[in-house]
């Protein structure tokens, strides 16, 4: 699979920042759209702009979706919750990683969240994991798009294509895996959530198929 370009990486970081601003404790494909818009320097954001989608309007629309209960409203982060109990999450993370190593902490986190329930002490998510990354499928589809087109790097346009493809596929899917459902309940998303991009763009008056075609045309101009 081709690696992400610097710009695509930056837009992923901006998506994370946007999720934080909204008080969302997960990173979904809808935040990727916001990340692309916030960067504003890529062809992908220009295509979105030509459809009349701006960062301001997309943020406002996501806020309205939160009022409708499609996505959660602002929630305190794990660090804030533990801070209220007098625990400094960053200090705990730093100390344990120093004592046991970065890798060991990550592996323990992985094992604990996937432990069989009959062993006891089952937790879906831990504060040491960071927010759940629910845009994984969209990002994977973006790499597949880039590879199918023979491009050497995943550009923001591929990311947007991946997000759109993810929205199309999840509209056909009925529900995610058991673990997916546990995680979305943990971050306050409604049952049956598989990404809110489709609803977000529809509410902004964008036709998904026409947007996909426009992004594909934009990609035609990129040298492999």
């Amino acid at each position, binding site marked *: 699979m081709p690696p992400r370009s610097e710009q695509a990486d930056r837009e992923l970081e901006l998506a994370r920042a946007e999720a934080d601003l909204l008080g969302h404790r997960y990173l979904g494909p809808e935040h990727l759209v916001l990340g692309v818009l916030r960067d504003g320097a890529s062809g992908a954001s220009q295509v979105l702009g030509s459809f009349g989608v701006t960062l301001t309007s997309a943020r406002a629309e996501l806020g309205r979706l939160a009022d409708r209960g499609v996505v959660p409203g602002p929630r305190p*982060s794990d660090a804030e*919750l533990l801070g209220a109990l007098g625990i400094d999450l960053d200090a705990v993370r730093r100390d344990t990683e120093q004592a046991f190593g970065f890798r060991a902490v990550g592996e*323990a986190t992985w094992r*604990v969240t996937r432990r069989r329930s009959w062993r006891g002490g089952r937790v879906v998510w831990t504060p040491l994991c960071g927010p759940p990354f629910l845009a994984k499928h969209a990002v994977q589809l973006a790499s597949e798009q880039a590879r199918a087109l023979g491009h050497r790097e995943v550009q923001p346009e591929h990311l947007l294509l991946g997000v759109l493809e993810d929205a199309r596929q999840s509209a056909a899917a009925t529900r995610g895996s058991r673990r997916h459902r546990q995680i979305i309940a943990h971050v306050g998303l409604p049952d049956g959530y598989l990404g809110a991009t489709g609803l977000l763009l529809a509410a902004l008056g964008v036709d998904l198929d026409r947007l996909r075609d426009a992004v594909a045309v934009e990609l035609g101009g990129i040298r492999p």
Partner: protein
Amino acid sequence: MGEAAASSEVTQVAAATSSQDPEVGLAAVAALRGLVEVLEALQVENARAKGWSWRQIAARLGVTKQAVHHKYAGRRFGLRR
């Protein structure tokens, strides 16, 4: 929606927490439980790697040796890797 407004709202929610508001109090407990489970797993794994027996580990955790074995036994926590 202002960026500053959204984030300050969130911090206010967290600041006003204690145990009064169930919405925040319960979420804080869940976060704490997640943290505890990881720390316990790290400590048990470390103790096993240093050759501690299940009985010794269980005594420090305040549970029976069967309980800690039931929860952590497996290839990863065995004495021989």
